[in-house]
């Protein structure tokens, strides 16, 4: 094995990238905190759980006792366990909102291909203990604001897989055919849907609705179109839930309806959504309602941070670097004052004045502060400007000379 080679699908983050990632996490944490979400942490090591919805994607490890552990492949099941342990009443069905946020690494044991990592950072929230259009709308709103907070222009597609499930029930689609049909609907494969519906000899309004559903995407009018010919009570209810979510938005111009969202039908039981931004071909985040799957009432979303940061970079970067000036000095007293004043100060390793200047240049420092003994001109602006120089002078208590 090549020495120093990383496992495929993992990577280093050099300082610039690590800083961008930390800044993005910070922005999102503040956003969720401002909306009343409380941050929690869950272990990255889990006991292998055969019922885990993403269990097939998890790395397995052998525990010292011989049991099998897995690395976290999805936050949601772990958060559900946290809720069962810390909020048993909510887990048992008590109706009260529980707002949780998280961020951390997840690992997917997949063939490394198609520019997809196997170790990546997810940031997300869960709104547990309530199930209503208003709760769905809160998550969609925060999905949109998460994208906007990172400097991107959001577009969110919204659908309700419960509508597709209701059509399956109304058309009496046999269980063994549901997966293939859901897949064809989700891929908007009109020919495929027609072939399956014809092959199963399905007829009537529910069969017609199944053939029509892949093309029902666009603005809010698609909900009305579908409602006018909903083949069952359950189908109408699923559509009315979507209409209720839209009613919660004053301006729904950034939302795009898609009644053909039929991904993971056995997991998602209600409104689901994905966020995109312009000129970036992959979804930035995804989520939805999974009432009954892990908890009686729960919905949430997760954002893949690496992908979002790639979108930010593709859109021209994160804008101005507003970090504080970097100063290099040999003078520890000066360093203490400057740090207290909000500067970043690196101690010069060398004490030789010429070496110190080279050191500061190599670090990309904005200013060099020479020892007090060198007199009033001790602040050398390397990349910094006069304003910053005056600020440093004030912190040091020396006269500013520009």
């Amino acid at each position, binding site marked *: 094995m090549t020495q120093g080679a990383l496992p495929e699908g993992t990577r280093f983050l050099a300082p610039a990238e690590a800083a961008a990632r930390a800044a993005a996490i910070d922005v999102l944490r503040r956003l969720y905190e401002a909306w009343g979400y409380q941050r929690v942490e869950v272990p990255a090591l889990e006991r292998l759980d055969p019922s885990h919805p993403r269990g097939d994607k998890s790395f397995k490890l052998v525990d010292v006792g011989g049991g099998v552990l897995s690395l976290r492949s999805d936050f949601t099941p772990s958060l559900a366990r946290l809720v069962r342990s810390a909020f048993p009443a909510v887990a048992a069905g008590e109706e009260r909102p529980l707002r949780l946020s998280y961020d951390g690494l997840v690992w997917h044991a997949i063939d490394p291909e198609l520019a997809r990592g196997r170790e990546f950072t997810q940031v997300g929230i869960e709104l547990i203990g309530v199930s209503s259009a208003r709760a769905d709308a809160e998550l969609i709103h925060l999905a949109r604001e998460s994208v906007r907070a990172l400097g991107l222009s959001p577009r969110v597609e919204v659908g309700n897989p419960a509508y597709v499930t209701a059509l399956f029930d109304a058309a009496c689609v046999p269980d063994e055919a549901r997966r293939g049909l859901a897949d064809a609907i989700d891929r*908007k*494969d009109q020919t495929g849907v027609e072939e399956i519906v014809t092959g199963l000899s399905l007829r009537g309004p529910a069969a017609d609705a199944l053939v029509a559903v892949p093309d029902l*995407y666009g603005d809010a009018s698609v909900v009305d179109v579908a409602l006018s010919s909903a083949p069952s009570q359950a189908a109408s209810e699923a559509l009315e839930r979507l209409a209720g979510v839209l009613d919660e938005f004053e301006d729904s111009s950034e939302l795009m309806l898609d009644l053909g969202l039929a991904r993971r039908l056995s997991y998602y039981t209600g409104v689901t959504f994905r966020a995109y931004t312009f000129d970036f071909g*992959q979804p930035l985040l995804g989520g939805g309602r999974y009432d009954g799957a892990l908890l009686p009432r729960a919905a949430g979303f997760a954002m893949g941070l690496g992908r979002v940061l790639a979108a930010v970079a593709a859109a021209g970067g994160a804008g101005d670097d507003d970090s504080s000036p970097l100063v290099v000095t040999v003078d520890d007293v000066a360093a203490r004052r400057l740090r207290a004043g909000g500067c970043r100060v690196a101690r010069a390793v060398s004490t030789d004045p010429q070496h110190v200047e080279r050191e500061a240049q190599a670090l990309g420092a904005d200013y060099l502060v020479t020892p007090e003994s060198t007199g009033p001109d001790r602040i050398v602006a390397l990349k910094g400007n006069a304003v910053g120089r005056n600020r440093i002078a004030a912190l040091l208590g020396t006269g500013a000379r520009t």
Partner: protein
Amino acid sequence: MSDLVLALPKGRVLERALATLAKAGVAVEVPADPRALRYAGDGVSVLVMRNADVPTYVDLGVADAGLVGQDVLLEAGSRLYAPVDLGFGACRLSLIRPQGATTPVARVATKYPRLTTEYLRRAGSPAEVISLEGNVELACLSGLADAVVDVVETGATLAANDLVEVDVIALSSVRFVVNRAALKLKSSTLRPLIARLREVSGRSE
């Protein structure tokens, strides 16, 4: 808004693909230089590539949409939107054996290792799969494998080499595929294009 970027497979399908797009109102000028990899049209640019690469370009959003055979999509395990079956390039993906072969299949050569493995697993066969790049029928004739999985259009190649289709695994024809984000973000361009492509391929209701 930026140009619509289309990924098209080089080779036989390309001419038919461009003709179909032209009928649907997307005119693309084919450059005089046959080595050109990018063609520009009015509000459209076209990337020309090997057919197996089309799903990758569209999935990652480098191309907004593309044309590619269903056989390639199945092999790629693609989750792309595939809203139009353009009808041309029709073929079958079949299990092929020498005339009169009766022994159990032990080794299958193919350009479609994923589909073949799935097919054999479904059929409960323990046969091993050999992945080849082309002319897979040769594997059967030379004894490298005792069966192959490959596309069959007319069956003429098979007949000429004393091979027979034993089982049809899947039917294929060229599909118009669309990136998931692009369909939503460029729907003002893509929706009408999908409707026109369905019309010209006789697939509109």
